[in-house]
């Protein structure tokens, strides 16, 4: 009977060989394909259970993963949640927003640049840990912007963006109303999703990052662009005399444009600087027509309109300046009305471009991606030029006009003793009606930079809704002090 026993044993050997080969196929050759399948909940859960890297501002973590008792091992925690929520976004199972999304590969530790770290972890038997992301945010400027906005009341809707003109670093970015990302990152997914639904149904839309996702008519702050286009054309300087007056009738139309200010614009000819100081619509509307639709369009695009330039946050809204506007349309854009719309970030970039001798830097938020444990920089953030918006001389002419506007014009609330500040206000008509037929109150804007000769910070403040009577809403009085506080926070880091 031994011969058949040997045959049977060979048969059994083949059975076991088949099992071993199949296991090798599953766990080695085919493993990556299985792991990468979208319907593989195990890998998604494991990624969610990993110790994710922190998002740092200075040396402080604004988002970090702390050990939790549940099956996911780590809970994402946001410090100063409302102040930083528009930046960090939130991280939950199968979904992430804000920086949590754009920096996901690095924070989760899957980025190729962390390969060596993963290998070391594997050898040491440690769980993979994600890398840390340090932001360009200046915590003092961020707090100044946040406190300044909140001081305007509990139901304020607005945003503040501060940039470092020479690099494009985003020093502050605040959007109100805000939300609590901790509630959205709750591992009680039902509770989190109920909160998300509630937030998304609020008419004030707190989940929106108004600094980069809301485009509104920029009002008179856009006169900086109009002035740049005019001077860049070579036909004007800051002292050029331009037509003005109490009223201006749009070309090919019977519509009449007035000024918001009570005095300063009424002479039939004033200097361009004076037109800027007193924000004379009747001067800038014809100036835009003189520059022409193409000139205005080119200048706007040179500052970043109609473009996507922010990579560090998802879904940046594109600011619009349409091509081929007719003369009345062009005249309206001359003072930031009509078909021009901009995000606060866009207007901050216009201001920073003027401050940086006409060179617009690409805005960025990630200062450095750092290794999980040693905080060594694995990949630094890159400062790159977006465009040359104006010549250096044009920029300095516009700067002069903006300095005059702060010294004795509509932007005086932003003046800082001992520092030359350049600024421009804006109060944009919304052109919208409320459901009850009343007009939606205007939007208040303020842009500025300081110090004027060697700028370190450029700011844009946008107030979409403030709970105040319509005739109290002015870019200078509401936005000016906030811009001032942000600039001071950057200029006096220990003050």
């Amino acid at each position: 009977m031994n011969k058949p026993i040997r045959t049977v044993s060979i048969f059994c050997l083949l059975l076991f060989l088949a099992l071993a080969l199949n296991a090798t196929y599953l766990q080695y050759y085919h493993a990556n394909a299985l792991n990468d399948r979208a319907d593989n909940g195990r890998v998604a859960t494991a990624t969610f259970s990993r110790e994710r890297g922190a998002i740092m501002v200075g040396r402080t973590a604004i988002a970090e993963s702390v050990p939790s008792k549940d099956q996911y091992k780590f809970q994402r925690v946001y410090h100063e949640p409302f102040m930083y929520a528009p930046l960090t976004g939130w991280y939950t199972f199968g979904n992430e927003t804000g920086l949590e999304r754009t920096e996901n590969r690095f924070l989760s530790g899957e980025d190729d640049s962390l390969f060596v770290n993963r290998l070391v972890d594997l050898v040491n038997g440690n769980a993979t840990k994600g890398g840390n992301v340090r932001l360009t945010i200046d915590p003092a400027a961020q707090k100044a912007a946040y406190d300044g906005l909140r001081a305007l009341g509990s139901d304020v809707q607005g945003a503040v963006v501060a940039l470092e003109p020479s690099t494009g670093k985003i020093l502050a970015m605040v959007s109100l109303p805000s939300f609590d990302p901790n509630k959205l990152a709750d591992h009680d997914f039902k509770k989190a999703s109920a909160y998300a639904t509630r937030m998304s149904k609020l008419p004030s839309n707190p989940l929106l990052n108004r600094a980069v996702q809301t485009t509104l008519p920029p009002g008179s702050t856009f006169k900086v662009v109009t002035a740049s286009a005019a001077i860049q054309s070579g036909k004007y300087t800051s002292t050029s005399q331009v037509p003005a007056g109490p009223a201006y009738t749009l070309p090919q139309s019977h519509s009449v444009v007035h000024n918001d200010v009570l005095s300063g614009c009424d002479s039939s000819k004033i200097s361009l600087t004076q037109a800027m100081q007193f924000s004379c619509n009747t001067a800038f509307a014809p100036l835009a027509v003189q520059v022409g639709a193409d000139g205005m369009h080119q200048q706007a695009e040179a500052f970043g309109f109609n473009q996507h330039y922010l990579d560090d946050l998802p879904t940046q809204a594109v600011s619009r300046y349409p091509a081929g506007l007719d003369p009345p349309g062009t005249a309206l854009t001359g003072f930031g009305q009509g078909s021009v719309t901009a995000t606060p970030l866009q207007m901050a970039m216009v201001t920073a471009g003027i401050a940086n001798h006409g060179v617009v830097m690409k805005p960025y938020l990630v200062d450095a991606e750092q290794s999980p444990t040693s905080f060594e920089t694995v990949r630094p953030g890159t400062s790159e030029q977006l465009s040359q918006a104006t010549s250096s001389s044009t920029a300095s002419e516009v700067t002069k006009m903006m300095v005059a506007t702060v010294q004795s014009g509509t932007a005086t609330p932003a003046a800082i003793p001992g520092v030359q500040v350049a600024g421009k206000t804006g109060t944009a008509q919304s052109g919208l009606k409320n459901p009850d037929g009343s007009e939606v109150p205007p939007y208040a804007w303020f842009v500025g930079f300081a110090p004027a000769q060697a700028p370190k910070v450029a700011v844009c403040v946008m107030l979409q809704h403030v709970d105040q009577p319509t005739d109290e809403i002015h870019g200078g009085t509401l936005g000016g002090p906030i811009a001032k506080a942000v600039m001071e926070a950057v200029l006096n880091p220990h003050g």
Partner: protein
Amino acid sequence: MAQPAGPIMQFVHRRRRGAELFLLVLALAVGVGAYAAVGLGVKGEVPADIVSYGGWLAALIIAAHITVRMVAPYADPVLLPIVAALNGLGLAEIHRLDLALDHHFARQQLTWMTLGVALFVATLLILRDHRTLQRFTYTSGLAAIVLLLLPMAPGLGKTVNGARIWIHAGSLSFQPGEVAKVLLVVTFAGYLVLHRDALALAGRRVAMIDLPRGRDLGPILAMWVVSLGILVFQHDLGSSLLFFGLFLIMLYVATERAGWLLVGASLFVAGSYAVYLLIPHVRERFVLWSDVWAHYGAGTDDKGRQTVETMFGMAYGGLIGRGLGQGSPWRIPFAESDFIFGAIGEELGLTGAIAVILLYGLIVERAFRAALISRDDIGKLLATGLGGAVALQVFVVVGGVTHLIPLTGLTTPFLSYGGSSLVANWVIVAILLRISDSARRPPPDLSLPGTSDMDETQVVKM
């Protein structure tokens, strides 16, 4: 079969009980180490009851070892350590799933293991000579059939996951098929020893292959019908496959005629095809296997979830595994029973999976080795049958779980949670040890006169 030439040329096996003890210490280290690793992996600390748990496991293993030392001193030294290691690993993995899913299967499994070791000891103590099993050929055959029919009895049987293979009495549930497996091997061995000559010698030679006589086809047809019956009435594809394959292997070994394999294989193919056409349950298993991705996830019937989650788990485990307690094996439904191999593959990786496959391979190899050196036909047939049963069962369940073949319900010997399976497999090991003990034991030396036995029988004092 010729006996070896004589006592002088006889190769004398050593007892190797020391080697067994050494290997058992290693096996205990695997079991207790895995239990500690599970605690560390899940809770970050060694379980508080590690001493009592390890002590209990050690006590069971030592009890088994001492029994072997006393009543089967020449038994194969590798089998018991392998089984101890597999059982310990299975307990640790079940405990791991307990922690994840908040049940207490590991404690029950340890109780079943205790019963299994007790039956192991009892089998070795009572069954001093495996040849006595031949007396129970028809008794155990009848018992096996009764056991297989029990789940069909109203009030006793219960359908679990589509298969009616359980009996319930109070809170106790039992899968009689596992015990029937052992009884059937005994029946087949006893029957074949008696009838092998008739089955082997008579017949016709067609195209180089000896085909059996028609009238000798009786038993194989009977077994075929029984297997199909299990399939049709109990929907138990795995057991049906196991019993028929088992019978075929033993028939082939007993008769040394490949013709029986041909007959059996044709019957198997014909039966499978008929069953595929007639029984929806079987057809569904096959369809699931041929395109499992169409049966996984939202929008589908999700019947492939077990298999897909097992494949995901094994892929996620990769070469070295996530580490005990650090994977997500609870994502596999019923991971602690049929699918425990997937859980081990995830947490111990390809390394652990291959190790487990090799351990099973070694069990089968040691069983066949005992069969080869056994001096009597019933021993050869029993050892081949038991070894073949383990091989087939492991192939059917592990192959099914890892998507190599269609999925059929069977337990993974010694690893899976389940009392009947564990107890039956411990008895199988006891019988294998008994056979190998008698095979490796030096034959009584009849050439030298004057042994005490002879003296006493010769001197009769009035």
